[in-house]
């Protein structure tokens, strides 16, 4: 018994000492190269674009991945050197990431998500020569561009599609977090639904209250909320809940009903094939367009300090047609879109 434990200890110690030596050597050489090569590798005039995701960002098959798509497009079309960073799971280092990008010579730098508003402002003040952009938050410094989207307009179209397709006269909306941003989705969706049938029943459920952002990454909560709506007789549920939307799709698949995705064309981005078919359409929020256009404008010498709103007019929002399920009501949707673009319909941004 004793001998066994001792031998185990000994093996552990020996292995450990060897590894420590290896790690020490490796650390030295590695550190030397990164420190000396990094500045040399920068050539003058190269477009270096940095992008920082929010918590749980990369891989959400939605909002953040759309931002990344825009970044990749900048790489292929504008020849930009790109770097994307994700924060720690507690989000304590958002400002650090921005500064590390700035220190590493990236310009412009994009923060994805409204949580970056505060940190972008501070970092922008510290690095006045670098241009910043923040998605979903307003510009708050002379070198910050706010990339905003008219989510209510896209959601209006989603509402029109849902109300037209829902035979039961009952639809639902699942919001991730009850804040002003997600309320814009709700307001547009409700207005769109009511424009088709004023007596239609709309269930609205927010997963978490304002300030508690776990609602964007709680598929279990999304599933429970959508299940309830489907059981109550809803035919179609629209979600604006980030990662939690996956739960909405699962509930729709189980109930053999339909769902509407958000931000990206989720029928394409969702991996599970049984979930793809339940996604009737998706309300596209072209974060990729916003990010790409910003980088392109930067290359052209544009300076920040203003907000750019991507609305229906510039196809900054819209509906995805993958799967062809809304092709039969295309005329109706186009008419609604035209009315909004022409200003005949003003979509409310508050419920």
């Amino acid at each position: 018994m004793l001998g066994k434990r001792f031998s185990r200890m000994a093996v552990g110690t020996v292995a450990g000492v060897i590894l420590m030596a290896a790690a020490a050597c490796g650390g030295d050489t590695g550190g030397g190269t990164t420190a000396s090569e990094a500045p040399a590798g920068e050539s003058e005039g190269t477009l270096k674009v940095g992008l920082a995701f929010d918590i749980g960002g990369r891989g959400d098959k939605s909002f953040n991945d759309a931002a990344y798509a825009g970044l990749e497009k900048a790489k292929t079309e504008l020849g930009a050197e790109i770097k994307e960073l994700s924060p720690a799971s507690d989000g304590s280092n958002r400002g650090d990431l921005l500064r590390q990008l700035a220190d590493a010579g990236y310009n412009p730098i994009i923060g994805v998500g409204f949580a970056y508003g505060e940190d972008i402002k501070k970092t922008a003040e510290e690095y006045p020569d670098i241009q910043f952009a923040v998605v979903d938050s307003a510009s708050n410094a002379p070198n910050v561009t706010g990339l905003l989207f008219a989510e209510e307009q896209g959601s209006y179209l989603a509402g029109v599609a849902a109300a037209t397709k829902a035979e039961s006269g009952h639809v639902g909306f699942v919001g991730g977090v009850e804040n002003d941003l997600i309320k814009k989705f709700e307001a547009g969706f409700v207005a769109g639904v009511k424009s088709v049938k004023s007596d239609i029943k709309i269930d609205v459920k927010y997963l978490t209250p304002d300030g508690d952002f776990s609602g964007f990454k709680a598929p279990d909560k999304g599933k429970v909320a959508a299940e309830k709506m489907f059981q109550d007789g809803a035919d179609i549920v629209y979600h604006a809940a980030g990662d939690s939307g996956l739960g909405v799709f699962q509930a729709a698949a189980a109930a053999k009903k339909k769902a509407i995705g958000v931000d990206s064309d989720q029928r394409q981005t969702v991996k599970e094939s049984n979930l793809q078919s339940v996604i009737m359409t998706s309300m596209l929020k072209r974060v990729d367009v916003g990010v790409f256009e910003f980088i392109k404008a930067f290359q052209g010498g544009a300076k920040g300090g203003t907000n750019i709103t991507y609305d229906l007019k510039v196809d900054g929002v819209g509906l995805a047609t993958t799967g062809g399920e809304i092709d039969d009501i295309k005329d109706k949707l186009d008419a609604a879109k035209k009315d909004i673009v022409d200003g005949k319909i003003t979509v409310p941004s508050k419920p």
Partner: protein
Amino acid sequence: MPAGLNRALFTVAGAAVAIVLAIAICSVAIVAAGADPLAAFAAFFDFGASARSQSNGIAAFLNRAVPLFIAGLAVAVGFRMNLFNIGVEGQYRLAAICAAYVGSTFTAPKPIQITVIILVAAVVGGLYALIPAVMKVTRGVNEVIATIMLNYIAINLTSYLVRGPFAGQRAEGELTTTTPDLPESAMFPNLNFFFDWFGVLPPTRGGGVWGFLLVAVVLGLVVWVVLERTRFGFDVKASGLNGPAALASGVNPKTMVIAAMVMSGAIAGLIGLPEILGDRGAFNSNFTPGLGFLGIAVALLGRNKPVGIAIAALLFAFLDRAQGALQIAEVPPSVITIIQGVIVLLVVVANEVTNRLALRLEERRAARQLGRNSPVEVGA
């Protein structure tokens, strides 16, 4: 060799082996993730090329260590008494929002303003910890369950307070919720002058190195003195090691439970202040969560001793700082979490192994001396 030194050597050796093993295990994980372990370890030491990025890196490292250290202290005070205060998480969040709100309602000279804010945080944290303590002594409710449940209440209560009663103005187009901004007199002076002494560029990150670092150091000293050099500290330790024996020697276990929990909660109340008084100037929805849970790992790693906790907090902060550097080196940053988890696990195992080893050596030494029929000196 004296028994105490022997044991200390064992502890250090155990921790070193644990860290080395953790690096080995993580190397495997990094290779599995398709990255280069050497690049990963280099990234931990890569503070950037420019003077500014280096001082920013140092600031980020120290600023991360301060709340982790306080969190570790808070948890350790409970651990000393075998009280598992999981509620640090809820205690610090509730304390932080109350302190930020109270601090924003008045303006006083800096020392007074900051003292009041610190006191409010400590009192709120202590009072919130009093609830599970009272439940335990009056009804025997397990503090683990009570504090976990109270965490949920605190977390939801703070997110209600920040958007409701304690909500402040937010800028147009901003979606983060926040309490009213603290007046300038509430902001804790930073330690950037320290960089000037060495002729290094002062960091810009989040208002530089937070001055709350000094409060944390003083707090660590106070906790050490109270736990190691006072009657109260001895009572806490005795009650934790052997409740009935402590009772028999005149220590009231109920008083001790309440005192230790409230002390733990009061320290926990301070966890959020470095961030609020050093950088944010308000409690908002970007406030760092999860420090209470990390504090458990830090306390375990530091073996509930202030010095050990300081080392553990610095280690965790050092690893956390590399989040960005790792990604720039194309290594998934989740290796940090893996390293932290593995180190804690291995250190706990190593503690157990070294304890047994030391005990066995001690027994053998005692047996040898008994055989020689000379006086035996048994170390703790």
